[in-house]
């Protein structure tokens, strides 16, 4: 089965207050050692991979702040990858960027390497909110990054915008959206701030220095945002993902549809041949393990029951919903049989779930309650 590849670049220059992805502070020497280990990991994977099954359909470099990477090392990794696998010509190849690190040279190098989909962590255009998030870029940085991308004729790129920030008003969000839409990115991730345990933001909140955002305001922001984006021609294909037609992120869809993906780098999560496993969330352990010639992985031992829960959970987050036939083919069970029947009926009756031809999907109001609905539906 063809698969997607994710690379986790584990370094940042500073740590954003809301982020709970694995990262270390950037250090060039450390980066070099990381890449050495990455080359080993890639070679080991390549050597043990079944020979008939080597087609890569998309690549996504996330982090961390991958726009900090030494490009020659990234190029060497690609060579290593191509030595063992077939990287399809013109495949979707994304990389995450902090606006302040975007330069003309960087984008030109991306083009040379075949990277065709940069994404920019703009998050907001309000200095006050950026400060709260501990982001280091300015409005100018964001605008310049997009202008440069347009100038270099990237046909596809994305921008991220956060809402439901403490101290953010509806009006601030509307202005943020207007400014972003004006830049015309083909893809927008418009997502609600999640206060993750252990982050500086969560700590501030626990100490009472920040108030949680009102539930009704959050609803209004999301709903208003969705409408605004729809007017501007963006189609919502998943809870937080909006795209001009034809610019949906294929890589993310592969996660949500239960296709195979292989991750490299610390804390990368893989789903290959029905197995889920994760690399350790520590660059040092990752390096040590690979120096010994061992995969730095932790297995998720769960089985088919958990796979089905995941398929329901991820499927309902997508506008198109869960494909009944696909579900039955994948698991040998009908999706209905995996649901709490009583809740299913209540939810259909109250108009939250639409049991369409061949698909189970959420209605517009249901979409806002996807987590609650999923929780009620699973057994």
């Amino acid at each position, binding site marked *: 089965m063809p698969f997607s590849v994710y690379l986790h670049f584990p370094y940042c220059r500073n740590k954003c207050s809301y982020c709970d992805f694995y990262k270390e502070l950037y250090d060039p020497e450390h980066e070099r050692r990381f890449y050495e280990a990455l080359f080993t990991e890639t070679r080991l994977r390549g050597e043990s991979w079944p020979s008939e099954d080597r087609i890569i359909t998309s690549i996504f470099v996330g982090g961390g702040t991958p726009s900090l990477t030494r490009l020659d090392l990234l190029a060497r990794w690609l060579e290593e990858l191509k030595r063992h696998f077939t990287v399809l010509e013109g495949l979707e190849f994304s990389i995450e960027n902090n606006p302040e690190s975007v330069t003309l040279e960087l984008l030109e190098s991306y083009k040379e390497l075949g990277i065709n989909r940069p994404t920019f962590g703009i998050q907001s255009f309000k200095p006050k909110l950026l400060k709260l998030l501990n982001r280091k870029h300015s409005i100018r940085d964001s605008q310049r990054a997009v202008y440069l991308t347009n100038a270099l004729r990237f046909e596809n790129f994305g921008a991220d915008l956060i809402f439901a920030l403490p101290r953010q008003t509806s009006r601030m969000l509307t202005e943020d959206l207007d400014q972003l839409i004006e830049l015309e990115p083909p893809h927008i991730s418009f997502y609600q701030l999640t206060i993750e345990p252990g982050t500086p933001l969560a700590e501030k909140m626990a100490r009472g220095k920040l108030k949680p955002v009102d539930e009704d305001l959050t609803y209004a922001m999301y709903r208003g945002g969705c409408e605004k984006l729809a007017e501007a021609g963006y189609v919502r294909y998943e*809870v937080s993902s909006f795209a001009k037609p034809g610019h949906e992120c294929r890589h993310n869809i592969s996660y949500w549809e239960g296709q195979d993906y292989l991750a490299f780098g610390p804390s990368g999560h893989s789903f290959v041949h029905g197995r889920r496993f994760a690399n350790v969330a520590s660059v040092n352990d990752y390096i040590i393990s690979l120096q010994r010639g061992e995969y730095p992985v932790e297995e998720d031992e769960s089985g088919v029951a958990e796979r089905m829960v995941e398929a329901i959970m991820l499927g309902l987050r997508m506008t198109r919903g869960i494909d009944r036939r696909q579900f039955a083919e994948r698991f040998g069970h009908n999706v209905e049989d995996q649901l709490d029947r009583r809740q299913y009926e209540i939810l259909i009756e109250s108009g939250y779930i639409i049991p369409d031809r061949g698909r189970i999907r959420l209605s517009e109001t249901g979409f806002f309650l996807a987590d609650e609905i999923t929780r009620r539906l699973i057994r």
Partner: protein
Amino acid sequence: MTHDPTKIRNFSIIAHIDHGKSTLADRLLQNTKTISEREMRKQVLDSMDLEQERGITIKAHAIRMEYLASDKQIYRLNLIDTPGHVDFTYEVSRALAACEGAVLVVDAAQGIEAQTLSNLYLAMDNDLEIIPVVNKIDLPAADPDRVAAEIVDLIGCRPEEVLRCSAKEGIGINELLEQIVKVVPPPTGDPQAPLQAMVFDSVFDTYRGAMPLIRVVNGSLQAGDRIKFFANKKIFEVDEVGYLRLQKVPIESLSAGDVGYFYASIKDVADTKIGDTVTTEKSPAKQPLEGFVDVKPMVFSGLYPAVAEDFTELREALEKLKLNDASLLFTPESSSALGFGFRVGFLGLLHMEIVTERLSREYGQTLINTVPNVEYHVYLTDGEIVTVDNPAQMPSTQVIDHVEEPYVEAQVIVPSEYVGAIMRLGTERRGEYKNTEYLSTERASLTYNFPLAEIIFDFYDKLKSVTRGYASFDYGIPYYQRSDLVKLDILVNSDPVDALSSIIHRDRAYHWGLALCDKLRNLIPRQMFEVVLQAAIGSRIISRSTIRPIRKNVTAKCYGGDVTRKRKLLERQKEGKKRMKQIGSVEIPQEAFLAALQIER
């Protein structure tokens, strides 16, 4: 070997909680060398973990000491320990009935408290000789003269008869032992008469069955005797008699005046009722000793497993607890809201807390318990009388002639400045004021009749808060009295929730319905649907409130391929919500079923 009955002294120690009863008992055991220093564990008599934790005695005990008195004679002292809580008033009265004397312990700093009084009255009802003791004289705040004066006023003794002790420092212990020998009369009773022995406690041993603790009043008892209980006429063969030190000491016989235990392969502890009389089958006594009452539970609550599948486990756990606790009654019941569970009867709120705590601690049960209620006597128009221990079972108003509820006479002791506060609290709780007596110029004792339902929960906390902790409170055995009561139902989206029904005085119903709906509104989380809460008496809706639906609950991030984490989060939420009860499409958390307990009256 029979002991000269004139050298036996049977006595109890009575005190308000924390006045030092257990420490004093420990000192007596030490000074009589009943236990060595090495065996000395703090407060040996309180052996259950829960007892040690809460500093209260739940079960009665009896321990024998030998004491060489100043007259060079050896006396046999039987110390019968009594439970120290109002839920167990009857047990206390039986333990006291097994004695001829009582040591009345009063804290030198705090003075006489409500429990001191109620226990003293019980002792006087049983014609016991009282030995007054002021304890904790070593405390910096001690005022032994003032407290001694209070005692003199109360029992009418001479000031020099009040002993002064510090159990903690070991002061005055020998004087107390001498006083016990001198003041407590030896038991009377005829060793040759037919056997009459009173059960004052019973504990259960998995291997040997029930072990009743008895006071032999007349006759004697030995292994091999076939004995009969008066209450249920059941006959058993005695296989061991003995007395208690720290361990059981088997002996040949117990005779008139003695205190001890016996085994008779009694499988059910409920056969050994406290206060019952034991006699022999061969030459039975003509009548039982006086004072036996078959105690009935006073407080009832529905206990339901949080997860329906645990029903059988809960039943087994309750059955095991009942082996050692004959006062625990339970019958299966079902609730449309909570599924299958049990209606459990308790002696009082503390008993309920102990049982539910043991169920969760020792048996790992996760429980939902409904708001505790009392038992009502409902007189129907056709002349029938039904008892109702579950508000949901209240007959409809059309067929009710009138209803009676249990009342208790209660004693509240407070510094005089708080008399006004007590009066207000008394009115709030539908108390009928009887009288006030002044123990001294600073302290008053108020007597009230209260509906039991008004004092079984949060009354004590309330009392403490309006008097800054200075009030003490105790009450007697309940009696029934007519009241104007109605059943209040709670409807969730028009479905009545049986587990939330309550029985309440008509004058309070409106306020109560309002407060309960309001409380529930805060306890039931917002759902995907609008939730309408209503309080109703019969078909009349008296209050209504709504919970607005949530409109957004979807987490933003699902990137990076870490699907496992999101799934686990979801499963954890699911697990958490499993504890919720489903009423129609509404999920109700467990806490909601106890909402009534949080209402300010």
